[in-house]
């Protein structure tokens, strides 16, 4: 099959540069404006940061699970999540501003305040700055190690065609999924749950995971559709693969709603002040309207749009649903993070846009720059043919 396997032209040369310029403008603008209101800056930054981090983490999970289940159908499109997860090294660098803003974001980091707070004093052995940093280093070390391992083996196979690489990836994937589950959960506890340090929810980890994996699959689909528009991977990723991605998206839309509701439901039923506090903040003022908006457009609308087989196979509609869900993931994270800062309702700031633009630009630039250097699909994967011949019943 004669399929172009290398990016060239606009997407390879100019696009990463344009994205980089956009990113630098965004970050610089955010830093200049953020000098006046550092707390707003760090909250805006955290939302956008988490948005891209969850996409990369979801992609890592996607790759691990493909190897763990020895999936054949996804081989042709696996390079896209591989590139997304390789961006985790970039996310480690972009984490530095959050470390600088610890005191603006996490009030448990203020030792004087902790001394007056019985609950925080109890939690201090876990929630203290040095241990927080150690954990962050540990998370990034394991993610980057896993991402590099799977990326390197997969791209090495492009050259050597060695089937042993597939086997070794399958072997590591079992351990990888365990490491992933632990680090993913604890990072959500550290970076999101501890924004409200009195509050606790045993579901926050899986809740953030659910949104992340959903958005990640949507992003895979979106990038594949973008490449398709430019004439790449038209045969390797065909309507059958979009159909399957659509099924996964549909499933994870339901999973996200299921997890989100379960978290709310248990807290609502038990009605314990330390737990209800969080929801009280997140539904006060027009945050309530915002929450309903998220339920409708993150669950109800995509559920009905994507229930049908025809919808998943109609690439225009597919693009629409995927874009909607990616946007809603940003809004969802905004709803999760922001009420800790603007307590009584939505307060849109120019920093929200600038931070997003900044990270978006840098993230996409690095992504496409790296994509230009490797084959667009695993050239010599032993299951490539199985993937290309795959047909849905």
């Amino acid at each position, binding site marked *: 099959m004669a399929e172009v396997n290398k990016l060239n032209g606009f997407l390879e040369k100019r696009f990463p540069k344009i994205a980089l310029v956009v990113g630098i403008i965004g970050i610089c603008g955010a830093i200049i404006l953020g000098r006046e209101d550092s707390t707003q800056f760090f909250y805006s930054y955290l939302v956008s940061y988490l948005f891209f981090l969850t996409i990369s983490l979801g992609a890592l999970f996607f790759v691990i699970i493909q190897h763990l289940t020895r999936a054949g159908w996804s081989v042709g499109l696996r390079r896209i999540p591989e590139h997304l997860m390789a961006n985790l090294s970039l996310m480690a660098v972009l984490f530095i501003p959050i470390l600088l803003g610890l005191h603006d974001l996490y009030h448990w980091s203020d030792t004087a305040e902790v001394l007056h707070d019985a609950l925080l004093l109890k939690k201090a052995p876990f929630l203290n700055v040095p241990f927080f940093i150690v954990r962050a280093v540990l998370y990034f070390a394991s993610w980057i190690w896993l991402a590099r391992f799977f990326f390197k083996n997969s791209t090495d196979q492009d050259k050597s065609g060695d089937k042993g690489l597939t086997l070794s990836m399958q072997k590591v994937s079992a351990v990888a999924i365990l490491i992933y589950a632990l680090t993913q959960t604890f990072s959500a506890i550290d970076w999101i749950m501890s924004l409200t340090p009195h509050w606790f929810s045993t579901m926050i980890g899986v809740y953030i995971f659910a949104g992340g994996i959903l958005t990640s699959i949507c992003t895979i689909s979106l990038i594949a559709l973008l490449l398709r528009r430019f004439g790449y991977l038209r045969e390797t990723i065909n309507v059958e693969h979009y159909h399957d991605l659509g099924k996964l998206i549909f499933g994870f839309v339901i999973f996200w709603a299921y997890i989100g509701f379960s978290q709310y439901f248990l807290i609502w*039923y038990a*009605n314990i002040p330390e737990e209800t506090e969080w929801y009280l903040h997140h539904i006060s003022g027009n945050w309530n309207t915002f929450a309903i908006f998220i339920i409708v457009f993150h669950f109800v609308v995509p559920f009905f749009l994507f*229930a049908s*087989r*025809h919808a998943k196979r109609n690439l225009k509609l597919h693009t629409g649903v995927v874009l909607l869900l990616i946007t809603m993931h940003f809004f969802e994270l905004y709803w999760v993070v922001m009420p800790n800062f603007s307590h009584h309702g939505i307060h849109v700031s120019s920093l929200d846009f600038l931070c997003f633009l900044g990270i978006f630009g840098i993230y996409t630039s690095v992504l496409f720059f790296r994509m230009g250097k490797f084959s667009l699909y695993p050239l010599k994967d032993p299951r490539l043919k199985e993937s290309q011949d795959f047909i849905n*019943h």
Partner: protein
Amino acid sequence: MAISVIGEFKDPTELLKAAKQTRKAGYEAFDAHSPFPIHGMDDAMGLKGSILGWVVLCGGLTGCVAGFGLQAWVATEAYPLVISGKPLFSYQAFVPVTFEVTVLFSAFAAVFGMFGLNKLPQLYNRLFKHKSFSKKATSHGFFISIDSELSDDEVSIVEFLKSIGATNVSGVKE
């Protein structure tokens, strides 16, 4: 008197080809039989998409409304009880059961809808009278059967099936 003429084919590829030819020859009341699903058979036979999805959607929505409605009615009208100080109409508490009933009704609609659309259960079918068919159809045989209301058609249909490469061709009557 209605008859069916059955012809056997060697493998799935032959069956697929035969189904296309049968359709092209203008036969409408025909069916292809295989022990397993064959890719592209729907197109070859000119079958339209199943309406089962819509049946399931209706089942699911009915279940959703029924599950929620029942709980709302019981909690507010039939047996109003204050539970842990919450309002009688606590819709949050109704969600799990609503969800379960939705799934249950969807599953019922899917299973029984499938039975209905396939006209199952069917204890008798005249095709079973065909020797080769009754032996192999569920394990390793590939067949095409063409129905006709007029038993006079038998000869021409037999001729046709033989012409497209069928073996063991014979007609079965009611």
